């Protein structure tokens, strides 16, 4: 094991763990803000207890998410110092802007929200939650613009042996980052919605707090339905863009080996990376891959064989992540559409409720493998076309990284177990009367 591999594993562990909590923060903050607004508008106490119940789960989740985010900002320096020197001029400024314009607001106001129930007017208190939600989304925009730059570097010049900023406008309007942002934020809303629907389903199945959880479920359902459609729409635009600027990733997503026009999608594909072909291709849908990549059934799609071997991402992992992500995304649309028709007789639909309860983990899986696709699919590059991951690590001892990786895994496993356990027992307990 070398420093690069260990550092990659450490970054993957830290990021993927952090991202178990971020999407729920983003999605649930909007739902809680909406519930509190309903309370302010209608004066109906049930919306107040909804705000408090879901708010409590939100806060446990927020705590783990926020503290595990700190290490990420510093890991570029500790483990990827060559990368940081090479592109800190651009990447660093996006992180700094994120902290200054968004993260400060979110972290300061969350304290005001928790402790300020009696110190602020009802309207002002609800507004604080909207600002928390907005700041969270704004944070993720900056982070995804930073990631977008690694995927598609723009607005730079090579000078003094590094990438220097040339056009700030180009960096903050980078299409890759903007598309990632819409795709990710709508996925986070889906995750938040499924979380609320799943927990509501549990209580509805037990026939307890029926009014409370029916209303919660319906609010989340609308949110989830709109969100999951938006995930698909933004994902489609994102796919077209990936095909243009990262042909290697796109080809690996479908394990597409030969450059062809009218490229098909096969319902069943088993990639054989070693022999540069697919072992099995069945259920061919002609022209569909061309359509997905260029919105044209006759378009030419670059195959992996036309990309140098040392510039190809790991095909199997990229391929499987993409398939699973799309499959799950489709499932979310179906489940919320079914929900829409059952929305007025949820309590009489125990099977649907059971499915929704069991579906809580699915958006988590979808969002994590979506990131695997984005990041593994970009390999071997750390900055697409500019710098390889293998050239980016810090000149530090392997033993240091090995120890820190072990420490990360132990600490995060413990935190994750406690965090999810607390969310679980509080979710199961249901709303507590005032």
């Amino acid at each position: 094991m070398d420093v690069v591999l260990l550092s990659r594993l450490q970054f993957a562990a830290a990021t993927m763990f952090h991202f178990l909590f971020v999407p729920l923060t983003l999605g649930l903050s909007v739902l809680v803000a909406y519930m509190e607004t309903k309370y302010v508008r209608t004066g109906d106490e049930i919306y107040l207890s909804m705000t408090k119940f879901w708010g409590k789960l939100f806060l446990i989740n927020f705590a783990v998410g926020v503290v595990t985010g700190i290490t990420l900002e510093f890991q570029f320096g500790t483990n990827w110092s060559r990368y940081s020197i090479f592109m800190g001029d651009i990447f660093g400024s996006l992180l700094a802007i994120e902290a200054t314009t968004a993260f400060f607001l979110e972290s300061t106001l969350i304290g005001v929200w928790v402790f300020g129930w009696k110190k602020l007017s009802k309207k002002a208190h609800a507004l604080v939650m909207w600002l928390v939600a907005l700041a969270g989304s704004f944070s993720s925009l900056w982070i995804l613009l930073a990631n977008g730059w690694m995927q598609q570097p723009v607005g730079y010049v090579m000078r003094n042996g590094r990438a220097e900023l040339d056009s700030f406008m180009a960096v903050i309007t980078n299409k890759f980052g903007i598309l990632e942002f819409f795709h990710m934020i709508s996925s986070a809303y889906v995750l938040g919605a499924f979380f609320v629907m799943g927990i509501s389903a549990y209580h509805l199945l037990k026939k307890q707090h029926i009014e409370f959880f029916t209303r919660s479920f319906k609010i989340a359902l609308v949110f989830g339905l709109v969100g999951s459609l938006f995930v698909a729409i933004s994902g489609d635009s994102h796919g077209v863009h990936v095909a243009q600027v990262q042909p290697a990733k796109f080809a690996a997503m479908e394990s597409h080996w030969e450059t062809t026009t009218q490229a098909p999608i096969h319902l069943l594909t088993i990639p054989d990376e070693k022999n540069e072909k697919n072992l099995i291709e069945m259920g061919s849908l002609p022209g569909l891959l061309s359509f997905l990549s260029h919105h044209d059934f006759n378009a030419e799609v670059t195959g992996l064989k036309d990309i140098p071997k040392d510039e190809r991402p790991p095909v199997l992992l990229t391929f499987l992540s993409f398939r699973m992500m799309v499959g799950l995304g489709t499932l979310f649309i179906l489940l919320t559409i079914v929900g829409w028709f059952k929305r007025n007789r949820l309590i009489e639909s125990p099977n649907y409720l059971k499915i929704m309860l069991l579906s809580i983990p699915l958006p988590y899986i979808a969002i994590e493998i979506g990131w695997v696709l984005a990041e593994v699919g970009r390999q071997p590059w750390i900055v697409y076309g500019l710098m390889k991951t293998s050239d980016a690590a810090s000149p530090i001892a392997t033993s240091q990284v090995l120890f820190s990786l072990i420490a990360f895994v132990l600490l995060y496993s413990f935190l994750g177990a406690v965090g999810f356990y607390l969310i679980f027992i509080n979710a199961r307990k249901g709303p507590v009367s005032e």
Partner: protein
Amino acid sequence: METVLQSIWFFLWGLLWAVFFMTDGYDFGVGALLPFLGKNDIDKRLMINSIGPLWDGNEVWLITAGGVTFAAFPQVYAVMFSSFYTPLLMILFALIIRGVSFEFRGKIESPGWKKLWDTCIFIGSVAPAILFGVAFANIFQGLPIDANGYHGNLLYLLNPYGILGGVLFLLWFLEHGALWLSIKTPGQLHDRSVATANNVWFGLLGISVLFLIATYFATPLYVNYLSHPILFIVPLITVLSLLGIKFFLIKGAYFKAWFASAATIVSATFFCIIGLYPNMFPSSVDSLYSLTAHNASASQLTLTIMLVVVLVFIPIVIGYQVWAFYMFKDKLSEDDLAYKEAY
């Protein structure tokens, strides 16, 4: 022009660290005092709730200091953080367990559970306080950096001057935290906090004097002062505000004492930063290998854009943080603990 911009950024960089020490400093202090001043669960909850609404916003100053180091001085960010790999990760782990402890502690009513998270709060507050002091003292002193990079490790950093820096930071934060508790807590806990602030003050005074003398022998920080004696006004402010803490403590003016402590921390940080200028990660082997504001900065365009961002947004941040601070300045009572949302 570029040199001026780099110098402005150097001092902004110092300012962010100073504000971080001033804001997160008191909640580190409160966490470090938790096992000593918190005689029972009510005391402990009062202590934790005294910083409950504010610690998270305070910690973002660290994120911003880190982010600005990355943006304005990418090479310093890269070399400093990879050189200080182990101590930095220890700080981050400490901050992680501390942060979740506040949220987790009250979620299950069991003495063992609370004991676990109290311990985490204590370690998570003491360790960063000491390690930041050790790290900065070593930067002031200069580090073993040659053409092949940095040649130190955690043990190397624990040299006498480094340890002195760690002790100094810990005492700063203990004093700052004890004063905060004097403002925020009632009854016997308040009395114990005042007594602690009074006692720690003597230690802080002694260690500060020792640090000033040691700095003369161990570091080149006084060089800038000797060539521009007017700058001695900064350590003078430190001395005056340090004396001010005691003055206001005796008068029972705890808010003023806390502000004097804040002024001590900010001016003391600036005393060091001014002495360090323009070095950011200096080599003790040969200044050829030192990273400075002038040889390790970002491009002029990035520095300019970031300056605009910081000049617009940092005052806004200060505005709403002062608003939040003002909202939660009042003394806590046991009624506040009955509040369902409290930690």
